[in-house]
Every structure is written in structure tokens, then in C-alpha cells.
């Protein structure tokens, strides 16, 4: 279930309230007898959960190079949002993320000892941040 079940009569979730628009008798039966589900309903619910997961998958994670270059900043948030909302959406993008996570620690080691190189990478990343910000304009990083 997407919405949290009510813990008592004094609490109701939006999805539970929505059942009032289906059948009030069923609302009472669910309250009295619990919520048995048919095989088909369970399958539908599982499919719904999976589609929600696909549609809204947005996890926070590591962003090695950008964090090294910018620290915890707005730029890092933009790149995280780009990674979660754009790259994670396709198998190719997920492969790219995995590849990045493999090489990023090594790159960070090299960068950490070369401040001048960090400045160059910062310049290159600025372009990526600008593009990422434009691409994810429909969906900012906030609360995602």
C-alpha cells in the first residue's frame, strides 16, 4: 500500500479515505474484518509498487569527484539530482553510474594531491552542472 495504514480510528490515510468513493460498505468491512486480498489484487498491488518504484526512484548517494571539487554544495546537489533522475532511469545510465563509481576513487586520489588539477576539473564540471541543471529543471533536487 502506498499510503500508511491508519493505526486507530483517529487517523486516516488518503488512500483509505479514497475507498469512501468506491464503497462505504467495503470501508466498514475492511475495518471489521481486515483486508483480505485476492491473488489478482496482490499481483496488481505488487505491479503498482514496482511501477511507483521505477517512476520515482531517486536515491541519494555518493558523488566523489564533485564533492572533492565543490564540497557539499548546490552544484553537488544538482549533479546528484541529475544522476538520480536522469542516469538511473535507463540501464545504460545505471551502467555509467557503476563505471563512474569504479573509477572515481582513483581519480579523487590523483586530484587530492594536485590542487591545480582540481581547478581545471572544477571548470569542466561547471559545464556539466549547467547542463544538468537545465535538464532537470522539471525536477529539482529538493525533497526528491
Amino acid at each position: 500500500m502506498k499510503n500508511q495504514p491508519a493505526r486507530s480510528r483517529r487517523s486516516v490515510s488518503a488512500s483509505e479515505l479514497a475507498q469512501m468513493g468506491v464503497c462505504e460498505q467495503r470501508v466498514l468491512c475492511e475495518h471489521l474484518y481486515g483486508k483480505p486480498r485476492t491473488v489478482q489484487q496482490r499481483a496488481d498491488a505488487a505491479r503498482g509498487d514496482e511501477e511507483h518504484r521505477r517512476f520515482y526512484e531517486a536515491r541519494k548517494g555518493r558523488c566523489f569527484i564533485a564533492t572533492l571539487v565543490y564540497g557539499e554544495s548546490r552544484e553537488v546537489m544538482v549533479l546528484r539530482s541529475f544522476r538520480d533522475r536522469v542516469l538511473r532511469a535507463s540501464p545504460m545510465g545505471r551502467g555509467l553510474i557503476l563505471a563512474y563509481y569504479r573509477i572515481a576513487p582513483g581519480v579523487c586520489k590523483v586530484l587530492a594531491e594536485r590542487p591545480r588539477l582540481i581547478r581545471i576539473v572544477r571548470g569542466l564540471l561547471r559545464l556539466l552542472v549547467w547542463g544538468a541543471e537545465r535538464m532537470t529543471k522539471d525536477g529539482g533536487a529538493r525533497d526528491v
Partner: protein
Amino acid sequence: MFELLAVMILLAFLLAWRWRRRESAWMPRELRRAELAYAEKLFKARGPVTLTAKVDRAYRRRDGVIVLVELKTRRGHRHYPSDVIELSAQRGAIMKETGETVALRAYVLVQDLSRRRTVHRVDLLDEGQVDTLIERREAILSGRLQPERANSAKLCQTCVYKDRCL
């Protein structure tokens, strides 16, 4: 290393372009330039009965008004009164928790088994109507009010409670 970075940037832009086309295909015009404010976020409106609502997506238009989008996976491409109630409850919960203005118009995004999507615009109930519905539900659960039956015979035929229906 720089070549690799350049290739990664290029690939990322290519993916972003493809994703954006696919992702925004369903989007109504008014949301295309709106900002995603909340995704899969739980809101609580405390009161005599606490209302909880998990919002699928909420976009903030340029005028600051929030517009709700609810994803439904169904065989048929249609929306139901229950969708309107659910979105109306979400609206009430967001408004009470954040104080933000939420539009009385929302969207139900219906996705079928083949993952084809259609979007349906719906007009929501106002806060007073949602409160009335919450009170009615409380009255039914406490036995103070007789519940009404569904108008659909088909719904009754497939209902798991059909043998217990009062």
C-alpha cells in the same frame, strides 16, 4: 582521463535528452515548466482525525501554486471518484502541514500493462468537503451512520466481502 570525462559528459547529455523526451511526454502543458517540489513525500495534517497522505508528485508552478500528480497502474485508461478523493486529501494534508497553496485542479496519470500513459485532469474537493468525508467515515466506523453500498453490481461481484456484506 580528460577524454574519459568528455565521453561521460557526452553520454550523460545524450541520455538526458532521451530521458527528457520520454519523461515529459505525458506532462500537461502547465507542468512542463514547473519545478518538482515533492516526490513520494509523506504529509500529516493533525486534527481531531490525523490525515496522512503520501504524495506521488507535486509540482510548483511559476506562480508558486502546487499542482498534484497521482500515478495509477490500471488496465483501463480512466479515472475514478476515489482518485479525486485521494488527491483532495493529499491537497488538504500539504496545505495544513506546509501552508502552501495547492491547486484545486490535479492530474491522474494512468499507466496500463503495456506502460502506455494517459493523463486525466480532475477537479478536487475543497477542504471542507474532505473534512466532511473524514467525519462521515468516522461515523460509519463507529456505527453511528449506515454505510451506502456501491452502485456498481460488477464491483460487488468481485468484492472479497460479498459473503459478509451487511
